[in-house]
């Protein structure tokens, strides 16, 4: 029965990874940018919610209402004033730019918050550790279940948004061919900025839920980036439904690894990631595995 519990926990943990990876996958799918500051932006959001919750005493869930638009604005501004310029200089420059941004965020947070680890768990009361009994021997965490549902709703909603709304179609058109998108009247600069806003806001959402379910410090970003990157690669770069699958595979691998050996949590996830990566390379490169039309990797 323990394996069933671990399977369920792994799937729910995968929901968190999918939530975290969603923005990374979306930004790459639309703008071809691998945002190395993705994890740090998530932690920045967690720190902002912590600051609000700690100073005002309001619930982190309420603080999210303030912080998510702020994160979206940060994403919009990053695209307009930093990524757009660095993209003009070639495909590798945005990598360096976001790497630099990650360092700035980490050290900025360290300067303000110090090196202590923090958590939002004390601010959400029993919800941080409540669980539901599925059977007499199988339990799932209520917060983990909420995160999983949120990830499914977010990824599904994003997919519906891209498929059925005019703005979504404009994003897909721009992702596929920005030159032609401009010829059908799409302001591609604005579309990129909106896509960056969505990507950073989803990273912010994931960061806050990380802070509720675990501890974080100003230097937690790179580790989260690795998890997000692994989920994206396992699920297929640029594919939103693949991101959910990738997150679940990573989460299940980690929990099974931890069940086999307490030290095996991280290493099992990395091994599965490497195995999928090697398989993909052997089967003809790091191509997207389907998902939303228009949000796929293109050959350079």
């Amino acid at each position, binding site marked *: 029965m323990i394996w069933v519990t671990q399977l369920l926990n792994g799937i729910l943990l995968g929901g968190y990874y999918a939530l975290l990876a969603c923005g990374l996958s979306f930004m790459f799918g639309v703008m071809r940018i691998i945002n190395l500051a993705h994890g740090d932006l998530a932690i920045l959001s967690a720190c902002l919610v912590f600051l609000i919750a700690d100073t005002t005493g309001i619930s982190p869930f309420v603080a999210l209402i303030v912080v998510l638009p702020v994160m979206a604005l940060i994403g919009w501004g990053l695209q307009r004033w930093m990524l757009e310029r660095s993209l003009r200089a070639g495909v590798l420059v945005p990598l360096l730019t976001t790497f630099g941004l990650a360092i700035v965020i980490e050290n900025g947070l360290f300067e303000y918050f110090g090196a202590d680890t923090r958590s939002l768990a004390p601010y959400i009361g029993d919800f941080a550790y409540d669980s539901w009994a599925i059977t007499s021997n199988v339990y799932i965490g209520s917060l983990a279940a909420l995160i999983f549902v949120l990830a499914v709703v977010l990824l599904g909603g994003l997919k519906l948004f891209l498929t059925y709304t*005019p703005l979504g179609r404009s994003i897909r058109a721009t992702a*596929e061919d920005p030159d032609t998108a401009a*010829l059908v009247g799409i302001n591609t600069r604005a579309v990129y900025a909106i896509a960056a806003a969505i990507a950073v806001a989803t990273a912010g959402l994931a960061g806050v839920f990380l802070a509720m379910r675990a501890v974080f410090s100003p230097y937690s970003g790179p580790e989260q980036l690795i998890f997000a990157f692994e989920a994206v690669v396992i699920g297929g770069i640029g594919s939103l439904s693949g991101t959910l699958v990738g997150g679940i595979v990573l989460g299940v691998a980690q929990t099974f690894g931890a069940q086999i050996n307490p030290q095996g949590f991280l290493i099992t996830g990395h091994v599965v990631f490497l195995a999928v990566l090697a398989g993909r390379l052997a089967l003809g490169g790091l191509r997207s595995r389907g998902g939303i039309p228009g949000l796929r990797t293109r050959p350079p």
Partner: protein
Amino acid sequence: MTLLGVEQLEARHGLLHAVRGVTFEVAAGETLALVGANGAGKTTLLRTIAGAHRPAAGRILFEGADVTAVPAYARLRTGVALVPEGRRLFTGMTVKENLMVAATHGRSGPWNVDTVVEAFPMLRQRLNSRAANLSGGEQQATAIGRALMTNPKLLLLDEVSLGLAPIAVEAVYRSLEALIAGGATIVLVEQDIGRALRVATRVVCMLEGRVVLQGSAKEMTRERVTEAYFGLQHARRATW
């Protein structure tokens, strides 16, 4: 009434001087055929008029207003739409989505999915097909339909017959001729001189970036255009 005015337009691709001092006008309701050999600068000229390529010098006037610095997406809203060479459809989208994405950003007017299907009956059964799965003729019809969905005042068509089977070319041109008969203003880049002379009211021939011949299609002979096309003689600039 002059709809489009191109004055001393220059355009470059790096060191390549693709368009050199081109000047011509297009009146409302007119169909202008732009002919010339490969590398004559026709596509660059069309892309520059559409705002997709930044000119090095000169002016583009649309309905009397200088639109030279207006970006492509905003120029479309003034009423200039380009059907690019190679169709450039959004292949991950369905035909209907390709049409809808253009309609979102275009001008309001008579064109919608139904009227596009009426103009291009071959699309009727293909609206929900992925653009990548269409035949060449269907792709070209979708590309023209996509431009029409923006309700343009001026339609720029680049190499509509390129790479199409003869039967597909006939089908596309039947629809185009209906558009022309309906009073559309069109600038058409076409390699097939005979076809260009048949559908156009005026012809402009380019050679190495320059206009070497222009005049009424009715008064232009195929031989004369061919000579200018290949630069076989010093073509006179017609003044008709």
